[in-house]
């Protein structure tokens, strides 16, 4: 019993030690430097970060801790000073973030596109139209539509389209019983939409990775308004002096470097490219 509890204590101390180690970037005495990045679930789920982060870690010795939480929360964490940088896809929110003094050096890194998906037989007749018209048709037909409803970048983009169509799907629950909110990530929401033979709004990358497991099809794509840019912003030390600004800017430099941009362009799932780099355009 004694040796058992001793070894547990040893393991516990060993484990807790590095975690409690202070990570002040200006006078670090610990084994590793850390960068805390909040990002979106949609990027994290594709696995892109697992490809572009390790070369950075190897080159600089800075360990990147990614908190994949959804754009709204990602930005909130940065405002609270709990992370050092954000990598999200909600341009309006990012600009407000910078304007309020929380962020510095916003840089657009890459983009992809959203699509509207739905049942193959397209009961609302939305196919072939632009995004806003498609949404109007869906609302008019009261066809079931499942939204993420979680304040994520994807969700906000979707809501902007409803607004452009002059529709408020969240107001007046009784009238809009066809509009459902899952409160979940893209994949789960797509699965739900598939089960219910409903329409859905998500980014092409996620749909492509799920394509052969669902019966939904792409109904609308290619509209300019479906453009989905991802940008990196560092947290401003003026607001949060302990923010690891140097590490953040190093990562930002990496993201916008030719090498990383090439890796982004070459990142494929099932032979299809998911993201398009924006600093060095590859045609």
């Amino acid at each position: 019993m004694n040796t058992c509890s001793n070894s547990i204590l040893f393991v516990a101390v060993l484990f807790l030690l590095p975690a409690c180690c202070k990570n002040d970037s200006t006078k670090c005495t610990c084994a590793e430097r850390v960068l805390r990045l909040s990002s979106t679930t949609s990027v994290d789920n594709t696995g892109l970060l697992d490809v572009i982060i390790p070369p950075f870690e190897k080159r600089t010795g800075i360990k990147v801790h990614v908190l994949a939480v959804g754009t709204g929360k990602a930005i909130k964490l940065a405002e609270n000073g709990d992370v050092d940088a954000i990598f999200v896809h909600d341009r309006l929110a990012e600009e407000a973030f910078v304007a309020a003094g929380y962020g510095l050096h916003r840089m657009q890194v890459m983009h992809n596109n959203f699509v509207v998906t739905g049942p193959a037989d397209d009961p609302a007749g939305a196919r072939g139209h632009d995004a806003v018209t498609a949404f109007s048709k869906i609302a008019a037909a009261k066809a079931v539509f499942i939204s993420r409803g979680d304040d994520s970048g994807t969700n906000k983009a979707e809501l902007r389209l409803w607004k452009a169509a002059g529709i408020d799907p969240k107001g007046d629950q009784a009238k809009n019983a066809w509009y459902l909110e899952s409160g979940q990530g893209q994949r789960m929401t797509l699965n739900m939409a598939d089960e219910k033979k409903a329409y859905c709004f998500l980014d092409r990358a996620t749909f492509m990775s799920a394509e052969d497991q669902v019966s939904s099809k792409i109904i609308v794509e290619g509209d300019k308004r479906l453009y989905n840019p991802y940008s990196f912003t560092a947290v401003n030390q003026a607001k949060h002096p302990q923010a690891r600004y140097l590490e953040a800017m190093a990562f930002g430099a990496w993201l916008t470097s030719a090498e990383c941009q090439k890796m982004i362009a070459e990142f494929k799932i099932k032979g299809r490219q998911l993201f398009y780099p924006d600093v060095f355009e590859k045609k």
Partner: protein
Amino acid sequence: MILEGIREAIRLLTSFDPEAWGPVGVSVTVALSSTLIASLLALPFGLLVGLGRFRGKRALVIVLNTLLALPTVLVGLVIYALLTRRGPLGSWDMLYTPAAMVVGQVILAFPIVAAFCAAAVERSDPRVRQTVLGLGAGRLRAALVVAAENRAALVAAVAAGFGRVFAEVGISMMVGGNIHGYTRNITTGIAFETGKGEFALGVALGIVLLTVALAVNLAVGFWQSRAGSQS
């Protein structure tokens, strides 16, 4: 899908894939640490409550039993509020580390271990304490003898605490952050992988969780029957 998941699970586990075993390591280390710390605090506390006679004892027992139902997300939320930069303990820089997970899990496990311990002691033979006191022991020694004579029940209390923290996800997610290779454990891993549609890995992790829980309970049961046959 479950079958395919099980097949994939066996493959991931036997090939020592770090995607599967990394989170297992985090779960085990964090849960063991929290259970150890919580027990060191909760067992003496439970003994005190179980053996003591003081005003407010009944109220304290009711509070302890109520805390058994603490939702993990609530604990996670409170710890987050304390550890966030803007919070009172922000300068500790503990958020999104395994240490923060341990803190939350200690809070979760404490009432379980304490309540079970107090109940076991209260249920136990009062003659033990009486006998030991009657032989001239002090109160502290008498409490320790009661604990030793009831060690099977106390071990069960600790095992219950472990089971609860090992399987929780609310705290791990909120204050651990599910950071790949750092704070991602079995439960946040399951949530994450299933959210991505990677059911096989989710199932794999679930199998490991159940296997560890089973192993712990088997070990406890085995030890209890051995200890039981001696006294």
